[in-house]
Each structure stands twice: as structure tokens, then as C-alpha cells.
């Protein structure tokens, strides 16, 4: 009996800790967004974050999309050949990338690159008292550090997803004409004909949501980093794990929402 109660208590504790954590993150997010309406806005920090998150993530997101598009073309061709539907390769590659793989893989790559870097940077600032120093210099750390990063990621990741969509389709195109004997004009024709505006837009909306999640997790875990190198290391790891899990979970919820509408 005691064993069962102990087991149930441990589940209860885990659920309560999870709910408390969600509550803290929600409060952190609302605090961040509340600064949008209150000046000053630190444009320099925002532009710096835009370059760090957007421009410098372009190679990794672009390469991921390019190779994924190529691999996807091969897989769809192999599957489609089983029921003589090889011609669907261009349209399935385009739809799969724009609606699902582009935003999800792009989001996960940005999570690995950006959430870790933000958490490590802000965590180090916290343990070296730089966050306290900002406060004593009449500068709100949420306004100066968090808001510019969250806003930059929310705007930059959809752009990255858009570029990733193009490169992914190009990857499929290169494999299609080089390896699967598609004609270039036919491939492009099939891609454009079956692709709808909503396919692209829904992926970009997902990208914005994932960008928000990535930067928010980086900032949240950085701001709540423990002491010393171990504390910063733990914050970095937690930021990447939380951002990745939330990206996958919110991807399902957004897909369900788009599917229902």
C-alpha cells in the first residue's frame, strides 16, 4: 500500500512541478510581451539579435532543407513506384516541405543553435552579475535582453523557413532531374501546379511560433540559470530540450488547428 501511495505521490509531485514550470514560463512570456507596449525599445539590440538569429542561422537551416528535399524526393519516388505514382514526387516534396518539414526541421535546427547560445550568454551574464549591473544602470533586463531576442526570432525564423522551403524544393528538383529522370520543366510544373498559398503561409506561421518558442526558452532558462559553469551548462541543456519538445508539441497543435479550419 505504501509503495502504491509513494508511486502516486511521485507522479503528483512531477505533475505539480510541471504545472508550476508552465505557469512560470507563461508569466515570463507575458512579462516579455508587456514590454512591447512600453518604451524604450532597444533597436540596436534587436538588429544585433536579428543578425545573430536570422542571418547566421541561414547556412545550417539552408543545408538542412536542401538535403532533406533531396532525400524526400528519393523516398517518395521509392514509395510512389509501388503503385505507379512516381509523378507525385514534385508536389509531395513541395507540400511536405512547406507545410511540415521546413518549419519543423528549421525550428529544431534554430533551437539547437540559438536557444543554446541565448541561454549560455544570458546565464553567464547572470552568474557574473551582469544582469544585476544592468538593473543598477536603470536598464530593465527583460526589455534589454529578452524582448529584442524574442521579437527577432519570431520575425527571423519564418524568413528562414521561407528560404528553407525554396532550397528544399531545389534539393528535390536536383535529385528529381539528376537521379530520377524527371524533365526540369515537368518537375517545376508539377511543383507549382499543386502548391497552394496556404501550404506556404501555414508553414510560415509555424515558423513564427517556433521562433518565439526558441528565443523564449533560451531567455527563460538563461535568466533562471544556476550558479557556476554547471548552472549555465544545465540552463543551456534545458533550453534546447524544452524548445525542441515545445516545437514538436506546438507543431501538432497548430497542424490540428489548420486541419480543422
Amino acid at each position, binding site marked *: 500500500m505504501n509503495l502504491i501511495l509513494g508511486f502516486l505521490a511521485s507522479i503528483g509531485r512531477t505533475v505539480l512541478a510541471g504545472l508550476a514550470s508552465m505557469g512560470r514560463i507563461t508569466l515570463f512570456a507575458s512579462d516579455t510581451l508587456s514590454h512591447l507596449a512600453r518604451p*524604450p525599445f*532597444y533597436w540596436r539590440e534587436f538588429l544585433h539579435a536579428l543578425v545573430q538569429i536570422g542571418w547566421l542561422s541561414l547556412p545550417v537551416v539552408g543545408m538542412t532543407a536542401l538535403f532533406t528535399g533531396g532525400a524526400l524526393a528519393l523516398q517518395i519516388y521509392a514509395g510512389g513506384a509501388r503503385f505507379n505514382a512516381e509523378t507525385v514526387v514534385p508536389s509531395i516534396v513541395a507540400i511536405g516541405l512547406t507545410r511540415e518539414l521546413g518549419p519543423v526541421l528549421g525550428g529544431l535546427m534554430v533551437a539547437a543553435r540559438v536557444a543554446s547560445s541565448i541561454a549560455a550568454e544570458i546565464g*553567464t*551574464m547572470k552568474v*557574473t*552579475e*551582469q544582469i*544585476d*549591473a*544592468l*538593473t*543598477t*544602470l*536603470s*536598464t530593465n533586463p527583460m526589455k534589454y535582453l529578452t524582448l529584442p531576442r524574442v521579437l527577432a526570432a519570431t520575425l527571423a525564423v519564418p524568413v528562414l523557413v521561407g528560404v528553407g522551403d525554396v532550397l528544399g524544393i531545389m534539393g528535390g528538383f536536383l535529385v528529381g532531374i539528376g537521379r530520377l529522370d524527371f524533365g526540369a520543366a515537368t518537375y517545376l510544373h508539377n511543383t507549382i501546379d499543386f502548391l497552394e498559398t496556404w501550404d506556404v503561409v501555414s508553414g510560415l506561421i509555424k515558423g513564427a511560433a517556433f521562433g518565439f518558442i526558441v528565443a523564449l526558452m533560451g531567455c527563460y532558462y538563461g535568466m533562471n540559470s544556476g550558479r557556476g559553469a554547471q548552472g549555465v551548462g544545465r540552463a543551456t541543456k534545458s533550453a534546447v530540450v524544452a524548445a525542441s519538445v515545445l516545437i514538436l508539441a506546438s507543431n501538432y497543435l497548430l497542424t490540428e488547428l489548420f486541419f480543422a479550419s
Partner: protein
Amino acid sequence: MIELHNVHKAFGSNRVLRGVNLTIPSATSLVIIGGSGTGKSVALKCILGLVRPDSGTITLDGQDVTRGDRDAFLARFGMLFQGGALFDSLPVWQNVAFRLLRGSLKRPLSEAREIAIEKLRRVGLKPDVADKFPAELSGGMQKRVGLARAIAAEPEIIFFDEPTTGLDPIMAGVINDLIREIVTEMGATAMTITHDMTSVRAIADNVAMLHDGVIKWTGPVSEMDHSGDPYLDQFIHGRAEGPIEAVR
């Protein structure tokens, strides 16, 4: 005048401040001494609002520090952190002029840079340091940049958290003189935390000894050597034997 009345602060089960009562008159220099981990930095951070006390009141010129315009309140303060706390991503001069580049004290870029270089000179650093990044400086130089930042906007009240730790004796003397000068010339109120008894004698008008979360002794620096307080005596003479346990 800054007044702390019955201030308590605990971190989990660790009760750091257990009823601190302290008064710092305007335009005077108070030095807080005490063993490591006795809550000196916590007391200082409570005044600035960086740490929220569990109970008790802290007032500045009679006003509760937790109420009123926070930006206006903080604009009256300068703070030198123990490790310098310089912003890695900014060059030295922008660190020093941080407050002058944004907010209510904003100045034109060239003027802010000039002020920064002048403050750097005041703490014994050459102008060529201005364009370097904090990571390119030694620990002692970083500390002096931190000091220059603390005084850049000429605040009314300046807190120094171990200002001479990590500096050679000559530079420590320069910094002690500078702190003294700031109090006498600028009429600033200074509150310093240090373990360095040479600094205490050079900087302080008044001394407060914090131990076990309470102020054990406070009085003018001139009375420190014959206070008759066993805790203070042990601390200022650095004796291993006495009421303060060496292992804490």
C-alpha cells in the same frame, strides 16, 4: 540618508540577514566588514532592490525604497560589483558610458565617449583601453573599468563591493584615495564592503561589523581599535582564536 530597520532575508533554510539595523548619513562613507558569507553583499543588494527582503524596511531620505519611481531611484546610485560585471559584448568605453548612452541621462555619442575616457583616466587607465573589450583586460583593469562605470554619471550614492580585491597594493591605494575623493569632492554617500583593513582605514568615516546576520558593532573608524567588542577585535586583528569560528 539610508536606513535599514530590522531587515531579514533567508535563502531557503539559510537565514542570511536576521534583523539588520543600520543608518548611513548622507555624504559619509560607511564600510561594512565581516567574514565571508555573512550577508554583506545581500544587505547591499537589498537596498538596491536586487534582492527583496523577507521583512523589515529600507528607506532613502525617509522614502521606502520599494515604492515610487524605480528608474529615478536607481539613477541616484552607482555600483561597483565584486567581479566588475562588465558587459562582454561592449567595448570598454561603452561599458563606462552605458548610462550616458540611453535613458534619461542620454548624451551625444562623442560627449559620452569623452566622459568615459576622462573617468578611465581617473581610475588610472590610459585612453587606448577605451576601445578594447573587457575580455582583453586583466582582472585588476576590469575592476577599475567597473569603478569608472560606477562614477560615470556622478551618482549621489555609490556602493563598492570589495573594490580593492585582486589589485596590487599600489593600485589598491589609488582606488582607496579615489573613493575618499569621491566622498569629499562630490559629496557622495559611499557604502563599501571590504575585507582589506588598510582600505577600511583609508575609506571609512564609519564602520559596521556584520556577523551572524546582525550588526555586531557600528561606530566611527577612529573608535574601531578600542571598541572593546570581541568580534570586531578578532576580525580587525585577523586572529584565528575568538568568538568568530574559523570554520563556518
